[in-house]
């Protein structure tokens, strides 16, 4: 694992999340996953569940940054 490149950016130059922002994205992933999976229970599996969190936490902040830049 490469050492952190500065405090704000990681080894890929992506922004590191602060505590509150990180909590927001984890909560968003959990709430959306639980609500959707109550009605679409096929989502409750070993593959979709973990992937859901990784996608939301990885892509969510990047998308918001992109929209803000416009």
């Amino acid at each position: 694992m490469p050492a952190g490149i500065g405090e704000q950016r990681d080894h890929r130059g992506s922004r590191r999340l602060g505590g509150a922002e990180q909590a927001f994205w984890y909560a968003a992933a959990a709430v959306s996953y639980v609500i959707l999976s109550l009605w679409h229970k096929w989502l409750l599996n070993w593959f979709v569940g973990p992937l859901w969190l990784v996608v939301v936490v990885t892509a969510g902040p990047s998308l918001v940054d992109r929209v803000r830049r416009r």
Partner: protein
Amino acid sequence: MSWAAHQFEVYAIQAHLPKKMQGKVSFWAIWLGDFTPDFLSKFWVYGITINGVHYGSSVPHQWHRGWPGMGFTHTLFLGILVTLGLWLWKRNRAWAVGYLLGFAAHALTDVNDSVGTMALFPFLTLNFSLETWKYAASIEGGKYLDAAAYYSSLGLVMDLFWLAVVLASWRVLTREYWRTTVVPADPGVWAWFGRFLPERGLLALYRATFFYGVCRLVAWSTWAHVVARPVIDGVERVGYPLDLRWTGPWWMPGRSLPQVPIWVVIITVTVLLIALYAVLGRLWEPMGRAEKAHRAKRAARAGR
């Protein structure tokens, strides 16, 4: 069977490794070991239905935990065999020890349901079960009834217990712990994932199994007790009845296989856990020396 307990126990093991193993056992090996039994057997337990034709096991609990069947996937025997294979192949102590710990956790946790596991396979093909809750996988009920029964019984308490164990060692979920303890034990795997994911994605990947465990616990419990409208004994109910007595829930027919008495289960599982801990503790240093020697030999061969 256990549900989210299997997700939580991965972090519980990670957090409670003996001091000399901390930061030196692969998280991914624990994860893989814990998931192997169900990876190998579960797909056929519920099966799939295509155009009204069901493809799957005709007797799910026999397939899942019995012999003949795939019950050997939930035995320490297979865990030890795969661990030996891993060790002979890679001479990697972090993976061999992690894999066996994860596998043992899964196989021994599953003695709680009414079917249990064959703890002494291949020497004995009787199942070891504490009958804490009913094993509920069936062709008619599928995954839904299985989930409803589990989350209406002491299975729910089992999941909450393992969740509490992880939350009591909450540091295991922090970024600091991940960076200083988890990544150094498995730098190659994390570096590979790091080619595709930013750090926040890697951390999410580490926490993802815990996240999935919490979400499935909440989602299935909510569905079973709030959303579902089951008809039990001819009466439509709001949610499945909760039954936190031993061998619950009452509204589900129990399934079991020929098994040993409960006192034998308690003694055997305790002895197996102590033996596993003692053997791994004893082998830890010699395995480290063998790994070093193997690496030195490979480096010398590469240098020629």
